[in-house]
């Protein structure tokens, strides 16, 4: 009994202390928990805007949590438990749309919350079409594409997406992501479906069968990956001839780690990554996050990020400011997925289609995998 009262008393004191502290220092919280993907991408965010921000506000601390991969599930659990501990969460656009629909992410007015471009263009015009959801604050454009071992493909390196499905010309294992998204589209493209019709075909059960039948032709030679680091490791090991992953990972393998790997940009699939603010933050934490996010997504900061990783900045006004790699000193523009040379044949990921069909096609894909 005595122990319980002591415990209660001490926690009450701690609680009161925290409140008093928040009041005494204006109405902004001093700590932020930022959620991201880990690895080189998180490092680029840290260098481009988190460290500069902390440098400007010496009394603020930021903690990273590498939980973006399960952000949707964790935010749901936090919401149910009534205890949201995250302040800013980095997610892909599709997850942002889901979180927004479920009311787990806060809706924002881009022009009010985000900084305008240096020339005065409003934030909503500067981000343009990339504001795919009312809750989503885009940071980067990335693409999912293929890398291949230059020493394992003979004299004619692969140049078309359909070379992935060509086991005769390029024998050996390839790695694909363990989910239907992107793989189904690539399969249909290589089965003779025109680019404009891919999603119409994929909406029908016959089209889904067709895509799986095409994937079936290489199934025995596929290693399925689930983490972005898998394909780079497999390529470095020489376990696979070619494999899909995020273009920034391949840049790191090729330019930073100097592995005998090259990019296959054909039919790369663009996607977006950005911040969401969890719904229901207390006022002091919300004020801090708003202050941070305005700084972190301005034109200069997004351009700075491209010094560390080969993902395209989401703002139009940042594009001309893309410079050289911070350590290697090479021009980053030719490594961007949006560079005209790389973007000769790109594929646009259809958010609405996958929002509607994902569960259904996922089930079929998993059943096919288990066969």
């Amino acid at each position, binding site marked *: 009994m005595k122990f319980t009262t002591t415990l209660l008393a001490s926690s009450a004191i701690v609680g009161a202390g925290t409140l008093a502290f928040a009041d005494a220092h204006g109405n902004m919280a001093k700590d932020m928990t930022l959620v991201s993907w880990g690895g080189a991408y998180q490092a680029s965010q840290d260098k481009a805007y988190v460290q500069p921000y902390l440098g400007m506000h010496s009394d603020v601390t930021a903690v990273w949590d590498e939980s973006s991969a399960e952000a949707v599930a964790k935010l749901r659990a936090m919401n149910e438990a*009534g205890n949201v501990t995250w302040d800013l969460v980095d997610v892909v656009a599709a997850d942002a749309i889901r979180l927004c629909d479920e009311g787990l992410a806060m809706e924002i007015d881009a022009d009010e919350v985000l900084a305008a471009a240096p020339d005065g263009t409003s934030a909503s015009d500067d981000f343009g079409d990339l504001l795919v959801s009312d809750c989503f604050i885009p940071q980067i454009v990335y693409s999912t594409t293929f890398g291949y071992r230059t020493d394992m493909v003979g004299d004619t390196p692969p140049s078309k997406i359909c070379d992935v499905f060509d086991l005769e010309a390029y024998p050996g294992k390839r790695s694909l992501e363990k989910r239907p998204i992107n793989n189904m589209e690539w399969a249909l493209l290589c089965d003779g479906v025109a680019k404009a019709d891919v999603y119409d075909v994929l909406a029908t059960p016959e089209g889904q069968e067709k895509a799986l039948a095409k994937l079936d032709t290489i199934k025995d030679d596929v290693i399925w990956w689930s983490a972005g*680091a898998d394909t780079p490791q497999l390529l*470095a090991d020489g376990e696979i001839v070619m494999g899909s992953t995020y273009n920034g990972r391949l840049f790191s393998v090729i330019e930073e780690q100097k592995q005998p790997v090259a990019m296959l940009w054909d039919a790369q699939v663009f996607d977006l990554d950005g911040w969401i603010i969890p719904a229901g933050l207390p006022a002091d934490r919300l004020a801090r996050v708003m202050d941070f996010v305005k700084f972190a997504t301005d034109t200069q900061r997004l351009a700075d990020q491209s010094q560390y990783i080969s993902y395209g900045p989401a703002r139009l006004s940042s594009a001309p400011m893309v410079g050289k790699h911070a350590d290697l000193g090479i021009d980053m523009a030719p490594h961007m997925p949006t560079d005209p040379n790389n973007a000769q044949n790109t594929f646009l990921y259809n958010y609405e289609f996958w929002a509607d069909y994902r569960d259904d096609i996922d089930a079929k894909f998993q059943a096919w995998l288990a066969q």
Partner: protein
Amino acid sequence: MVALTPISRKPVSFYVPVAAAAGAIAGLFVGTANGSGFLGVIIGAIIAGALAFLLTQIVKNEKLGRWATTIIVAGVGYFMAGIPGLIIGAAFGWFFGWFSFWLYEGRYRAKVAPYLTPGQVLWHFAFRVICGAIFVFLITPILVVMPLSFNAENFFTFTPEMLSFDPAGYSLKHYRDFFNSSDWQGAVWNSIKIAPAATFLSVSFGTLAAIGLSQQHVPFRRAIMAILISPMIVPLIISAAGMYFFYSRVGLQGTYLGVVLAHAALGIPFVIITVTATLVGFDRSLTRAAANMGANPVTTFFRVQMPLILPGVISGGLFAFITSFDEVVVVLFVGSAGQKTLPWQMFTGLREQISPTILAVATILVGISICLLTVVELLRRRSERLRGMSPT
């Protein structure tokens, strides 16, 4: 060693097939590594069988034959795979040279009892081979990690430079990474702060619970025991999810205290079980004797009972410590990024970025574990010696 059994030379029809069978197994490994297991089995069997025949029937001089085999096979290995091939080849050559004569001379019977049937002799050696194989399967994954942690590349790959023992292929950079990265150092400190606190709580509560539950007059002893050891039986993910929702409501989620309490709950069953086991051998009349001489219960516990059950308490505490130090599931739920422990950091590192820094950490942890266990074992022997329980 004096032979227990008189030995005699064996017929060709016996030892050549046996040597061939051993060669087939070795061939399976070499063949699989080079693309065809089946071909490896056949070639291995033929070479080993022919070698056994050649050595015993044609060369006959044992010393010369064994040296020649070792050198020739090592040369073939070097030709096939460079310096690593040389070492593996030398080991193979030495083994098959020895094995051929061992069978031919009948030496394998020398150290087993004379009355054993051939089947029993076979089992005698098969048993040792199986034990050795289990040992190899347990230990190899750990051993592979160690050289890889000195990789100069940022991948889990044995590079050609590493395989040819070129110093340029090795580096300490992943160890530097570990010691210079604030993420890793933060994780180490969190683990060091959490594990001892959780162990202390587990040992205190677990020992008290075990002593209480070993009293005859406590009602519902079995039911209470079952509840207390349930964290060990219920799947960890269930405990973790339950703790997450409960701790969120009482404000413990994402706090240092919350993680310590969660880990203490996981560690208590180990302490209860080990202490209960040592209490079985504890003579209750000693506590009555102490009471008779005027000691109060607390003094009795610390002066009489505790020293006698100490081995159980220590090993329970060791288990509780390792549980907390190795635990990743519960801390992912109950902790927040501020309580990122070493296993958590390794888990996310492995998923998001396959970096040999993880291997460097693993190597350091294996080293620490070996040191800890060695120290504990030495202390145990010392105390046994002091108490006169062991002859030396």
